[in-house]
């Protein structure tokens, strides 16, 4: 076979979505933000939403999403991204509005904002990255920290009597009246990543069809603050996180015309 005919048979299976900046991310090795960013970028491209997207970036490591995702963006204070997104969507109902928040941001300081945004049925999409720890601030306890998990502010391990139980956001959001889609996926292996993309797509469609509020929780690794290598961190998602935070769809009214 000649070199030329080999070239003709070459099929490009995987390329950088143009909406992603051509630069290395600042995330630690083994962190799943890069995977989550990539899924969002692929979907915005495939769903032809890039030009009309306004992204609300939140707090913690992921605030720099706007450095990697080349769409119009506004930065929200701690926990307030759903309120900012509400303002954006009300001001520009024809735009696609996305928030991207971590667990400290969404499940602790911003719990009121996310619940009311969902309950109002705001036509926005929320990507919730749950790695059971405050990452950027140095590994403190989060509302999602598992029982027994050691962090810098629960050095003896999270204890139910002292700190209460980890919050299950996908289930809570599913219980609210304006939510059309709420699901939880994980980013620790290819199968789960494919499921995550599927869930994100439905959440995005819920918005583009004007049906209501869409929410996807993504179980993610923080090897640095878990003090594990990336492989062990992926295993931890499987053996410790998924049993407490089960994967799947908790609410899906997208085939029933939403809540509106």
């Amino acid at each position, binding site marked *: 076979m000649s070199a030329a005919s080999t070239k003709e048979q070459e099929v490009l299976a995987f390329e950088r979505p143009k909406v992603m900046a051509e630069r290395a991310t600042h995330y630690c090795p083994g962190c799943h933000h890069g995977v989550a960013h990539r899924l969002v970028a692929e979907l915005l491209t495939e769903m032809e939403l890039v030009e*009309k997207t*306004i992204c609300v970036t939140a707090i913690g490591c992921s605030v720099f999403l706007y450095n990697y995702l080349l*769409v*119009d963006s506004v930065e*929200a204070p701690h926990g307030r991204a759903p*309120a900012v997104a509400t303002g954006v969507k009300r001001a*520009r109902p024809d735009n*696609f509005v996305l928030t991207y928040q971590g667990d400290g941001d969404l499940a602790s300081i911003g719990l009121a904002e996310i619940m009311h945004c969902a309950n109002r049925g705001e036509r926005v999409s929320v990507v919730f990255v749950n790695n059971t720890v405050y990452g950027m601030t140095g590994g403190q306890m989060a509302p999602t920290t598992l029982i027994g998990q050691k962090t810098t502010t629960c050095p003896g391990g999270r204890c139910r009597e002292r700190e209460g139980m980890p919050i299950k956001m996908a289930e809570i959001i599913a219980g609210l009246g304006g939510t059309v889609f709420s699901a939880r996926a994980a980013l620790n292996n290819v199968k789960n990543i494919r499921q995550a993309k599927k869930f994100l797509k439905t959440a995005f469609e819920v918005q583009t069809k004007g049906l209501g509020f869409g929410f996807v929780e993504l179980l993610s690794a923080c090897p640095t603050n878990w003090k594990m290598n990336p492989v062990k961190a992926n295993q931890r998602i499987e053996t410790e996180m998924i049993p407490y935070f089960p994967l799947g769809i908790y609410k899906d009214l997208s085939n029933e015309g939403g809540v509106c």
Partner: protein
Amino acid sequence: MTKNERKFLKGNEAVAHGALAAGCRCFFGYPITPQNDIPEFMSKAMVDAGGEFVQAESEVAAANMLLGAGACGIRAMTSSSSPGVSLKQEAISYMAGSEIPAVIVNMNRGGPGLGDIGPSQGDYYQSTRGGGHGDYRTLVLAPGTVQEAFDLTMLAFDLAFKYRNPVLVLGDAIIGQMKEPVAMRPAVKVSKAEGRSWRLEGKGTRKPRIIKSLFLDDGALAGQNRHLQEKYEAMRDEIMAEEFQVKDAELVVVAYGSIGRIAKTTVRKLRAKGKKVGLFRPITLFPFPDAALARLAKAGKKFLTIEHNLGQMVDDVRLAVRAHADSGFFGVYPGDMPSPEDFEEPILKALRRKK
């Protein structure tokens, strides 16, 4: 609206009408006395005008909704009263840092803490010093009549977009709750191009825009703060104040908002008795009309600052006149309701003062 139409309005209603006439199309609020007439009016007016009204889950959320709408270049507003405005400070700091235009109305009530629902001017420091964290300022407009509540709210939107900065309208429970005839002004037609060079609307085919207040690179935050300071300096072009019978006055009373108006009545009464007193009423509290006060000080006037608090604006008055004079201070305690008669004795006493 017919030409020269006049309406009999409460101050709160005048604020709401002013916002509507200025092209405000998004209102985000949370109920608190004594400003509830504003969200109540806007809940219908915004929808009728093809805009949006959201009763937020908290003042915090309302101010952050404002941040989102402002970043999109839409004329938007929130209103509240003192404890609620404290909760809005987080977003106000972020809006100042990210250069997002917005209008925030504070119908000041008594404090600190839950205080009462009566009038006070206890939020002067909070309003003029930034209020939230970081080095920033907001333009502060202080209406002294219901007409001004209408006019200054309209103006607030223009200034917010001119400077890409939050603008505060600082009234109090007196201004908010009293009724006066208001000469209505025709609604402005907001240019579709307003904010076109920076607003978020989806990138389309251009490069993406980021509206943010985080600046981590070496020197970047210093640069942003330098830029903001230059902007605050440029705001001096907007300085406004009312001078009433100050020309031949030996004593100038300095008072703003509803207290300025009550003091004006006292000044009139004392003038009728031949006393050489006048009134200086700052209308912009930031930037403060210091140059005009300095000129009066240089001309040899004495000063008495009257406020409905325990002494806040008097600091600015003293800074303005310090090269030539000092200012006396008479404070009405939050929780007490002053009358023009209450100011007579303090003014006469200040008039007798040597300097």
